């Protein structure tokens, strides 16, 4: 899109939305949010970026092929589920650790990595669809 205002403001909006999507992803366990919603926000951010600068720019910005991102997410989610097998508890059982960093207790869990996997799958798959539809001239 050629609008100067849009192209000027888009990088700001996109970066804020990306940051927000990660915020939503991480707070999901206790407040409204989570991997699925976070992923959709990230896709929206990338779509806006794509509308302003074209699909090729988006591809360069996310470095990896979108479907590779989705695949990595699926792998991460599967491994998070399989991790419980190592500790002899049923598949997909949530495992929690509470490391203390700078006097602050930070709860980490396999549930969180699973949610990150969901986020990556949604980002990768939907971005891939949007980008392939956008770049109709090249294929």
């Amino acid at each position: 899109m050629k609008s100067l205002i849009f192209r000027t403001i888009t990088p700001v909006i996109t970066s804020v939305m990306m940051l927000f999507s990660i915020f939503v992803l991480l707070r999901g366990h206790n407040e409204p949010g989570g991997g699925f919603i976070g992923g959709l926000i990230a896709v929206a951010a990338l779509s806006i970026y794509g509308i302003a600068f074209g699909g090729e720019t988006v591809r360069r910005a996310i470095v990896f092929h979108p479907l590779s991102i989705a695949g990595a997410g699926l792998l991460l989610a599967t491994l998070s589920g399989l991790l419980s097998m190592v500790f002899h508890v049923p598949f997909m059982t949530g495992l929690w650790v509470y490391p203390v960093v700078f006097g602050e207790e930070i709860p980490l869990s396999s549930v969180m990595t699973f949610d990150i996997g969901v986020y990556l799958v949604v980002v990768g798959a939907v971005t891939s669809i949007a980008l392939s539809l956008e770049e109709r001239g090249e294929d």
Partner: protein
Amino acid sequence: MNVTDLTFLALCLPFLGALFAPLLTRMLGHNAAWVLALIPAAIFVHFAGFTAEIAQGTPITGGYTWVPSFNVRFSWLIDGLSLSFILLISGIGALIVLYAGGYLKGHAHQGRFFSFLLMFMGSMLGLVASDSFLMLFVFWELTSITSFLLIGFDHHREAARRAAFQALVVTGGGGLFLLAGLIVLWNISGVTQFSALMSLGPMVKASPLYLAALVLVLGGAFTKSAQFPFHFWLPNAMEAPTPVSAYLHSATMVKAGVYLLMRLNPVLGDTPEWQLILPVFGAATLVIGALLAVRQTDLKLMLAYTTMSSLGLLVMLTGFGVPYAIEAAVLYLVAHSLFKGALFMVAGIIDHETGTRDVTRLGGLRTAMPLTFAIALAAAISMGGLPPFFGFLAKEEVYAALSSSDPRSIVFAVLVITGNALMFAIAFAVALKPFSGKLVATPKHPHEAPVLLWLGPAVLALAGLVAAVLSAAGHALISTPMASAIAGEPRVITISLVPHIGVPLALSGITGVIGIALYLGLARVRAGVASVLAWIGWGPDRGFDQAIRGLVRFSFAVTRRLQNGRLDSYMTMTFTAIAAVLLVPPFVFGELALAPVFPSIPLHELAIMVIAVIGLFAVVLAKDRLTAIVSLGIQGFSVAVIFLLYGAPDLAFTQFMIETLAVVILALVMTRLRLSPSDHRPFRETLPDAAIAIACGLGAGLLLLKVTQVPFDTALSDFFAQYSKTIAHGANIVNVIIVDFRGTDTLGEIAVVMIAGLAILSLVRLRAGSMRRIADNDPDAEEAGR
């Protein structure tokens, strides 16, 4: 290692061997056969070690847990019946491997052949060793699949491909009957193991489902054991290389059906149905097979049809239900395995050394191939049921079972004598005719076969003699335990080579006389049978082709109608179906929702709803497609706001994002489809679409109304609310459900998202021009083009 582990290893060994066979053949050439034959030999030795213990009457069982949640075990039952089969399969298997080494010497894919052969052997061993129903079924279908590979080994010939396909469809389809039958048996008895089922025979026979179980099991057994009218795949399977024919016909594959009947005899047997169906089909197969065999001039086909006869005889005896019948079946099964394996290998040797299998173009080979002649003669004497070979004992026992004076026995005795006399004639037509008389010129100059080729048949022919001479020991160790296992009660076999003057010997004499007469007049009998068959014209083999062709035509017609390539007709069909599903059941079953009671709605909520409705009207009235898409977004956002107002922030959040992305993606799709910016159809053409849309909306609305009027079960939401924080350490119940309580669901869902992404990407990249059109698959066009 204990016995259980060793037995498991023995059952796995052929599959391991199949893995290494190609590599070994690349290193050693055809001599790899000597190494690979050690596998069945080792299995033979391992199981032969159980003989004495099993002869005492204690079956050997063992196994491992397979699917504990369904109470399925990988377990085996080695009793007299399965032991005899295992020894035949592994013993003859070793000889067949050696024979294949000589027969396919220098073949480009000999390694692959060994691999298929060993896999088939492993499947067959697993089948007869199985104790659990499911294991039997898995191995049963594995034998169908591996025999498909073996029969279609020369896959560049269409006849081989057709024969392989036919065998797979018939025997694999029969396997599905068997699965259903086993499930019915499980349903009746509540057990999943044969060892437990054996004592429940009276319970199964008393059940109202007995006939269903019987018919289903017979559907599996009759297709596998090539009983009329499912026999046609068996002669067609002669397209396979001769080692396969020899193996399939002697100890394996076709005997699987007989094995199943023998295994289930204590459970299903001894009823009027069993004693009617089995003998009738068996005797019909016996006589028809023998008649069809006479008509052939190809050595392999003659033998193939006599196999069909022999299977008929075995099925008949298994179900005959008189003294000596089971014993006769046991002896005949062993004798048949030995002589039929040898004869097939002899036929292969003749083909290999002379270049033809046509009995009318062979003669006088006795000087060129004396050893082969001796082997063939020994096997034929056994097949003809003459002393001093094992076939004689088997036939005496058969006639002992049939020699009573009731009408049923007399009718079946006449049929059996007919079949046996025909088989007698064919045995010598195969084993005597090519060797006697004047030497006939053949495509290749005949000479004696190499050791790899004659070793197998020689051992089998000799075994037929040894088994007869040492019959007392053989009965004690093999035949008696096997007969006892089939009968489900102790049986003793005593017959020996010492002739007993009586009715059986007289019947044998009659058979021999008729057989010799038929042999001398074979050319005339052949012409007679051929003219009768030409008069009938149609057979199940042609019927199979017609059925398959009809199926292809039908599927083509359905596909052309349903998948016509027009997106709008797909949409119309899909949404009409949805509307029908939503609207028809409530009216038919009187499940319509009651009229809702409208609560008083606050003004701000009312405003949101009005905006949603305005959005809808905007969609319908929009001048161009882009405006319509954006207007659809308005409606979606309003719904999201309603979710938010009613306390579902996660849902609202998701709805906002989905609506945004849906608008973006729809807009992209629209530009990609290169549609005109607006819909130019006149109003009356859009009317049906509008009707379908309204019907869908109405249906969904009524369904939702009805759902909300059903009392809400709060058990799940209470559970989640109570435990979300305490077990899963999360305050957001929705998220905890997604990633923890029902995380496995989510894993499946994201896999679907991923696959959808892949699918859409490939759809977008498809070029219309490069796709094959459906018309290219028209079966009629294909035939016309040939």
